[in-house]
């Protein structure tokens, strides 16, 4: 009986223990899942773009980061391959960065701190021209190099300032921050960047039909106004391109608004159709414009009299340039240019004509009008730029911010384009008439220009990172729908020589870490404290003899055995 009871008890106990195992396992799992992400400081950082041209790699090829922070005051010859170098823009030395990259020295990572004035949406001005030039140089250098470590941009704030001051102090003392000497640890935990499978470019076109006179069986001619809206820069999450080409987009929208007012009344509708197009793929040899043109109906394309392309009209004062690819002696070009000069004279500034021949063998398309010219459509680009931009330049860099765009310049540009188009459409060339006069119902709306410019200056628009239903594209489409009769969207994939990689934005965790020696020291202190406490308690409660006897027990046992 007793044995049965015992075995039952044992059985119960073992069952109890067995049922505890899943509970214990669950508790262990729960406990281990507690996230260790309580950094004192978290900063938004933006990664340098990573892209390939025909397989040749450019930009920063890595994205995750887990190293100690170091500053420029490090000792010469110190090994930085396990450190992240923090470079504020104000103290940047381009030659140093160039050396580092060209000599392929290993570096854990690079963090460039930009002043707050370069943040999109920050209107506070006073940024010196020197910093802008330095930033432009830095961008050019970084974009053209193949960098085997992660490069991130961040904006200065109090926490980064204190961290940098601390790091500089430590570095100046000669203590390289490693696992044993404490300091700051920078951690960005993102997955490795992957190729963007088939980046889409979206072209938006709006069609404003003209009025056909009764008995007129000919097809109406069309005039096109085109601007490319996407950008390209060193940090895709910061490429807002206020001037290139935000100003062009805003000018196009305002011209569309003015003409839609005119065309809404059948009595003032002109005898020309108007085609407004917002194209994408601008920095990549205007691939979007080419695809859009090819997708147009042949008849429609042949009916285009001429096209005006807008590119960077936001920061000029007295002279605007008209770039053409057909020779200036061409009759059409002469007509267009005369129209522009007459209007410009009335408005009080100057336009100049610049001719650049197209080289068919060269695949580089520097201006948007060249895509039109290759398909035998007369076109010209109105721009403030003197020289044709290089590939991937002047397409919305980090230094292209809202503060340096002047709405007055855009308004002057709008007046130029609108007046010359209107005089051509209504047959008032050479006459001293101002259709879009100030203080009239057809005046250029300054607030419209300003609000669209502000909005675009806070929206990064690098095409491969825009989704198909991006809010920006929907907004532009809706805007054109308000002003034109038919709007259509064309989505193509960006093939060709460019490949892009994702992971453009991340969160940087800054941890202040203590060194191993500190932990060891603390352990030593605590051990001695506990030993002292033990001895004190033994002495006060049991007497000194007991304490001594505790240490004497093992020898006495040994003596007994022996």
């Amino acid at each position, binding site marked *: 009986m007793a044995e049965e009871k015992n075995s039952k008890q044992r059985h119960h106990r073992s069952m109890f223990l067995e049922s505890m195992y899943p509970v214990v396992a669950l508790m262990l799992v729960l406990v281990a899942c507690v996230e260790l992400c309580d*950094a004192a400081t978290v900063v938004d950082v933006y990664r340098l773009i990573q892209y390939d041209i025909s397989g040749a790699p450019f930009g920063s090829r890595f994205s995750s980061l887990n190293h100690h922070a170091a500053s420029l005051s490090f000792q010469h010859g110190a090994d930085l391959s396990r450190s992240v170098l923090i470079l504020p823009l104000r103290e940047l030395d381009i030659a140093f960065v160039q050396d580092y990259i060209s000599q392929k020295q290993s570096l854990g990572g690079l963090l460039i701190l930009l002043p707050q004035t370069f943040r999109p949406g920050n209107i506070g001005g006073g940024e010196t021209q020197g910093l802008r030039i330095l930033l432009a140089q830095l961008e050019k250098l970084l974009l053209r190099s193949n960098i085997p470590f992660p490069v991130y941009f961040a904006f200065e704030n109090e926490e980064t300032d204190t961290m940098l001051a601390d790091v500089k102090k430590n570095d100046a003392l000669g203590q390289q921050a490693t696992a044993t000497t*404490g300091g700051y640890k920078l951690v960005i935990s993102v997955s490795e960047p992957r190729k963007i499978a088939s980046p889409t470019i979206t072209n938006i076109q709006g069609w404003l039909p003209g009025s056909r006179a009764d008995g007129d069986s000919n097809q109406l001619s069309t005039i096109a106004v085109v601007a490319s809206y996407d950008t390209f820069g060193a940090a895709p999450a910061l490429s807002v391109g206020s001037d290139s080409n935000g100003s062009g987009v805003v000018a196009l929208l305002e011209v569309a608004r003015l003409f839609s007012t005119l065309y809404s009344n059948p009595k003032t509708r002109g005898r020309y159709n108007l085609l407004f197009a917002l194209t994408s793929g601008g920095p990549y040899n205007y691939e979007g414009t080419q695809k859009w043109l090819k997708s147009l109906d042949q008849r429609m394309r042949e009916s285009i009299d001429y096209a005006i392309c807008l590119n960077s009209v936001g920061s000029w004062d007295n002279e605007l340039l008209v770039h053409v690819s057909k020779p200036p002696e061409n009759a059409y070009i002469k007509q267009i240019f005369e129209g522009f000069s007459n209007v410009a004279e009335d408005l009080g500034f100057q336009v100049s004509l610049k001719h650049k021949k197209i080289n068919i063998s060269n695949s580089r398309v520097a201006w948007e009008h060249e895509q039109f010219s290759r398909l035998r459509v007369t076109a010209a680009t109105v721009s403030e730029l003197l020289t044709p931009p290089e590939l991937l330049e002047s397409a919305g860099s980090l230094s292209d911010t809202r503060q340096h765009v002047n709405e007055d310049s855009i308004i002057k540009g709008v007046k130029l384009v609108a007046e010359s188009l209107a005089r051509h459409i209504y047959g008032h060339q050479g006459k001293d008439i101002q259709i879009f006069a100030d203080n009239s119902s057809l005046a250029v709306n300054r607030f419209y220009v300003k609000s669209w410019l502000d909005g675009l200056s806070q929206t990064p628009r690098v095409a491969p990172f825009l989704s198909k239903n991006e809010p920006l594209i929907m907004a532009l489409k809706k805007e054109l729908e308000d002003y034109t009769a038919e709007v259509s969207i064309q989505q193509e994939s960006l093939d060709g020589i460019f490949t892009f990689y994702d992971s453009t934005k991340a969160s940087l965790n800054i941890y202040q*870490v203590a060194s191993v020696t500190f*932990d060891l020291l603390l*352990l030593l202190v*605590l051990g001695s404290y*506990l030993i002292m406490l033990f001895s004190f308690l033994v002495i006060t409660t049991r007497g000194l003899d007991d304490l001594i006897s505790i240490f004497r027990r093992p020898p006495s046992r040994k003596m007994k055995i022996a």
Partner: protein
Amino acid sequence: MTLFHFFNCAILTFGPHAVYYSATPLSEYDTLGTSVKAAVVYLATALVKLVCLATFLQVSETEVFDPYQMTKYGFQSQEALKAMIGFIDVAGLYFALAQLTHRNISQNHKFQAVGLGWAFADSVLHRLAPLWVGARGLEFTWDYVLQGLEANANLVFTISLAALGSLMWLRKNKPKTLIPIIYTCAVIIATMPSITSYLRRVMGWHFPKVVGFELMTSLVMAFISCQLFILCQRPSL
């Protein structure tokens, strides 16, 4: 070295309890059961306190130490309410000391065992979870070391309070002159949480300063209660 830091802070917070148990004659007399019972009583007391706090306390939007805040019960002071609820602690300690049946252990050891179990439960409930979640991270702060020091001070406080409690409730013959002193010391120790929160909010003391103050007062209180205990040991004349 984050688990290392956690280990350091854990031995600072819970080490003294184990050392106390093994160093004093408590381990010889096998008073573990008493300590466990005291810990369970502490748990029940904590639950009762939570319920009372949730029912009666009005939580203000800002962290303002306003003892004379107008509540719907009239001019009842919030902090006085918190202090009163703190006395539930004392009631729990009374229950653990006086009402629970312990094996035959001398009064000397009883209060020590009860105080030890009480303080250990307090440390585990209040400090283990923050330690586990916080000290394992990469970021280093002094908070957990200070928390450990606070746990040490708390241990001394609890044992002193248990000593005074045993004097108050278990010893029938006390010298008349010492009774008021005993009661004032007990009141001071029982209201320590209110005093520390007052220091932190009104005087704006930072955590290290508060912990230093706690350590010093704990040593002073321990000395005073030790003397009182010894004085009461002598047969009254």
